């Protein structure tokens, strides 16, 4: 993916051309152009407030770009029926929700809303997904009383039950403890599906992503294979750390301007 002038290929999932998004006079995303190809695990990287979540909002169609065009599966993204699109592109968002009065099982099966499947299949998918996130035994409990991390696992269960072609994950490691961060992302990576995930943790990104889009102050700074995008110079300039990328891991030495850790 992410070839700047690639020939039109049928396995292009998303193609963004000069995409910009602003609210009022705030530019949240400025002229982003890149392509996402089938089967890649793409990291949306950048420090806090770089525009990662805003860019994802355009991809799961909560917002429309104010400039530029987004093509999804070789069609304009707006030409897709919302429900058919949601069946192909699933999303895990990062903000918490008020779930009081719904059971864990009810919330998990809402993830299957875009799909028309039989009661039996729905039950199987929900059971499988809830078992993966270790909430099946608690399926009749009120989801309103879940902690932040448990709620995040429940939202993972929604997308795992749906198992769409494309996984959009906004800060998927938020609230999750390390076991579930690794367990759930490993599981999704093993499926070999297309994933676009925003990370503020570059080490976690290094573990999963083969491609990266680096954003800084609403603008796309770089795109391509992860090792090239996260060069020591960019780590220094954008993340303000002296660090080195090697072997799917990033070794961080010191913050920029601070000599050494005693």
């Amino acid at each position, binding site marked *: 993916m992410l070839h700047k002038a690639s020939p039109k290929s049928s396995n292009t999932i998303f193609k963004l051309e000069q995409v910009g998004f602003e609210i009022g006079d705030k530019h949240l995303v400025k002229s982003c152009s890149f392509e996402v190809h089938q089967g890649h695990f793409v990291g949306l990287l950048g420090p806090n407030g770089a525009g990662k979540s805003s860019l994802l909002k355009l991809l799961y169609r909560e917002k429309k770009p104010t400039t530029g065009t987004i093509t999804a599966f070789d069609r304009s993204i707006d030409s897709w029926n919302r429900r058919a699109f949601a069946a192909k592109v699933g999303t895990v968002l990062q903000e918490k929700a*008020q779930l009081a009065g719904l059971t864990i099982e009810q919330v998990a099966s809402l993830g299957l*809303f875009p799909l028309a499947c039989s009661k039996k299949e729905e039950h199987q998918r929900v059971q499988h997904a809830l078992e993966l996130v270790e909430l099946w035994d608690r399926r*009749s409990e009120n989801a309103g009383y879940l902690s932040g991390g448990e709620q995040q696992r429940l939202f993972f269960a929604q997308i795992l039950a749906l198992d769409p072609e494309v996984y959009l994950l906004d800060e998927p490691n938020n609230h999750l403890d390390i076991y579930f961060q690794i367990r759930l992302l490993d599981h999704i990576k093993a499926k070999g599906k297309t994933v676009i995930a925003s990370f503020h943790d570059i080490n976690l990104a290094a573990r999963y992503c083969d491609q990266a889009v680096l954003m800084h102050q609403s603008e796309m700074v770089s795109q391509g294979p992860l090792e090239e995008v996260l060069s020591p110079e960019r780590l220094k300039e954008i993340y303000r750390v002296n660090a080195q990328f090697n072997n799917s891991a990033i070794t961080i030495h010191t913050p920029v301007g601070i000599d050494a850790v005693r």
Partner: protein
Amino acid sequence: MFAARYPLLTIGASIALIVMLIAGVFWGTAPIPWQEKLAVLLRAPDAKSSLTAIIWEWRMPRVLACGLVGAALALSGTLIQTALRNPLADPYLLGLSSGASAAAVAAIIWLPAGIVAAFGLPLIAFFGAALAFGITLLMAYNRERPMDRLLVILAGVAVSLLFQSFTAFLLHISDPNATKTALNWLMGSAAGTNWQELPIMAIATIIVTLLALSQHKQLDALLMGDARATSLGVATAPLKLAIFLATALLTGLSVSIMGIVGFVGLIVPHLARQLCGSAHKKLIPLAMLLGASILVFTDLLCRTLLAPSELPLAVLLALFATPPFILILRQTRHVA
């Protein structure tokens, strides 16, 4: 969580409603002996015609109107609380009821009777409710942030006050004889409901109920927030617009029949949620059954407590509604 007892709950609520309806028809300001009640109800040939008039022309439409309005307001409250994800949302607090009554009073005073009759008071009240709701939402709208829960309610209260003062002004400058009747009507009263007012209310309530039930999964998804609902493929904007219009319609119709009836739309959905959870497939029928029972019961108390004089509905409703309202407020403080 709530699955096992739901059938029992709906059956219980249905029986309660039937009992309330029968009680509402049998008891009232005029005492009627038991054997005559039955004779009148069965339209026996030897029944007294004055009693037949009381039960068939006076009490029955009134009791049915209370049932319909109670169910419609509970449905409106449920839908609007989901659409705004706001536990304090209700047609009364958001200004819809005041808008509807201001429009109705203005129409009665200013417009020639022929025009009012042609458009119909229910339609005029609907426009009033929709206008008030529009102003409330516009005041609370912020395109950079999601709507603030308390701001919506404050805006609703402000709009409500605006329309109430407008109504008060209209009453002040109008014929003093009309004022007493209008005031009675404004405080909520089912008295004087006739059969002609019922069909449109019934049809509107049934249509909105069926539409809402057909969208029960979309409504559940909306509980998780607009962004999540959108990401699941729910067209949130048209759904919310439909909810706003349906709420304005049901509130407008309710106000045109019995004036401002507060709190049913606020309290009853919470009561139902406590009993059966938030999944709309179960919540909507139960809330409507409870709303209907409660309003029929309250109306019966209003008629009998100080018989032969009648209390306005608002007096008792506010009394019943205050404790649960305070409870909801206390719970909401933390999530606002």
